[in-house]
C-alpha cells in the first residue's frame, strides 16, 4: 500500500525492537516524539512542529515523570518509607501518577482534590488504592493546596510526607534529567523552541533548563490561560493564582496567553485531523506552539501532549 500523505512514512514497515523492563517505574519516559502533519499546513516550509507523546506514559500523563522523581528523591532522603503517607494537592494527573507509583512500591498515598473533579478521575485513583480528601470545588486547585497545607500543619504525629509538587524541586528536575535529553536526542539537536503551558510549571522549567544546558540559542516559551476564570484543566493563570515556588518567570523567553475555547477547539482538531486525541491542556500547548511556529521561517518547535482525551470522557 502506498500513499502520498506525509504521515505515511517509509519507516512504517519493518520491526522496531519492543522494550523490556525490570519494573513499572522503568516504563516512565522515553516517550515518542511525533511530527504534526495536518494542523501545520499553513506554516513555512522550513518550520516543523513536533509533539512529545507524554500521554503514552504508563499512568497516561506527563505527570508520571515528576511523581517518580519526587518519590525517588524523598525515599533517598528518608522522607518516605517506613509507612509514611505521601500527601499532595492535585487536580488529577499527578494524583494518578502518585497512586500508580505508590501502589507499585507499597507507599500509601492520600490526595486532596477539589470535589468537582470528574468521577472517572476519582475512580482511577481509588483503583490504585489511594485515598481522596475533598476540598471546596468553588476554590479550585488553590483550595486543594490550602487544605493540604492545613492537614500537614495539623499532623502532629508525623504521618505525612507532603510532596508539594508546586514547590518541590524534584518536579522540574525530572524534566531536566529526562524530558530535555530525550527531546535533544529525538530532534538530533535541531530543536529551536520548546513550548509548554504552566500548571505547576515543572515541565517548562525543567525541560527549559535541560535544553539550555545543550543549546545557547533554544527559546523557552511558557503559555497560560488568558483569564483567571478558565477551563483549561491543570493549568494556572499565574497573575491570579498562588504562584508555584518552582515557577521562575525570568527563565522564560516569552509567555503566550491562551483562551479556553481555543485550547478546547485545538484538542478536538488534533483528534480529528492528526489522530491524536488529547486533553485540553495539550490543545492549549499546540495552540501556543503553532502561534510561535507561524512567526518563523525556519525552526523546530516542540511541545507536549500532556495526556489522552479518554481521561476526560464521561465528564
Amino acid at each position: 500500500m502506498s500513499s502520498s500523505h506525509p504521515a505515511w512514512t517509509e519507516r512504517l514497515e519493518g520491526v522496531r525492537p519492543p522494550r523490556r523492563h525490570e519494573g513499572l517505574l522503568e516504563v516512565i519516559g522515553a516517550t515518542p516524539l511525533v511530527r504534526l502533519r495536518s494542523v501545520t499546513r499553513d506554516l513555512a516550509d522550513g518550520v516543523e512542529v513536533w509533539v512529545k507523546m507524554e500521554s503514552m506514559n504508563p499512568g497516561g500523563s506527563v505527570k508520571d515523570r515528576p511523581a517518580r522523581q519526587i518519590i525517588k528523591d524523598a525515599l533517598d532522603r528518608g522522607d518516605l518509607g517506613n509507612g509514611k503517607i505521601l500527601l499532595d494537592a492535585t487536580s488529577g494527573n499527578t494524583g494518578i501518577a502518585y497512586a500508580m507509583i505508590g501502589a507499585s512500591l507499597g507507599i500509601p498515598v492520600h490526595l486532596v482534590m477539589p470535589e468537582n473533579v470528574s468521577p472517572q478521575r476519582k475512580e482511577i485513583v481509588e483503583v490504585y488504592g489511594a485515598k481522596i480528601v475533598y476540598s471546596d470545588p468553588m476554590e479550585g486547585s488553590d483550595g486543594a493546596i490550602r487544605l493540604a497545607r492545613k492537614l500537614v500543619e495539623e499532623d502532629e504525629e508525623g504521618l505525612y510526607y507532603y510532596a508539594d509538587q508546586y514547590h518541590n524541586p524534584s518536579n522540574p528536575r525530572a524534566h531536566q534529567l529526562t524530558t530535555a535529553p530525550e527531546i535533544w536526542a529525538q530532534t538530533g539537536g535541531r530543536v529551536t523552541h520548546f513550548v509548554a503551558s504552566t500548571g505547576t510549571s515543572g515541565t517548562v522549567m525543567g525541560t527549559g533548563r535541560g535544553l539550555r544546558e545543550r543549546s545557547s540559542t533554544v527559546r523557552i516559551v511558557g503559555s497560560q490561560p488568558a483569564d483567571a476564570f478558565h477551563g483549561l484543566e491543570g493549568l494556572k493563570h499565574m497573575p491570579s493564582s498562588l504562584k508555584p515556588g518552582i515557577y521562575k518567570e525570568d527563565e522564560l523567553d516569552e509567555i503566550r496567553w491562551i483562551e479556553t475555547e481555543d485550547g478546547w477547539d485545538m484538542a478536538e482538531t488534533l483528534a480529528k485531523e492528526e489522530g491524536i486525541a488529547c486533553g485540553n491542556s495539550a490543545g492549549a500547548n499546540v495552540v501556543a506552539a503553532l502561534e510561535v511556529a507561524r512567526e518563523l521561517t525556519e525552526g523546530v518547535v516542540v511541545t507536549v501532549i500532556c495526556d489522552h482525551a479518554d481521561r476526560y470522557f464521561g465528564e
Partner: protein
Amino acid sequence: MTVQVRIPTPLRKFTAGQEEVAVEGATVGEALMNLTESHPELKSKIFSDDGAVRRFVNIFANDEDIRFQEKLETPLSEGDLVSIVPAIAGGRS
C-alpha cells in the same frame, strides 16, 4: 423572587469580593441576566457572544447541573441557590 448566586473565587473581583449576590429571577437565565446587568464585567466571563453559557462554565441550581435540568429555563423558587463553577478553577490566593 430573590435567589442567591454563588460566585467562584476568580470572578469575585467583579462583585467587590462578595461570595454570594442576591438577584431577582424566576429562572436560571433570568437570574444570570440580572446578575450581569448589575455586574456588567461578568457578562463576557459567563456568556459567549451568541448569548449561550460558555462551554467551560457549569451552572448549578441547588447543586444540580442545569444541563440535566431545563438549562437556562430551569425554574427557581424563593431562596434557591445558583452556583457558577468553571469546569476547573485557577483560583485566587
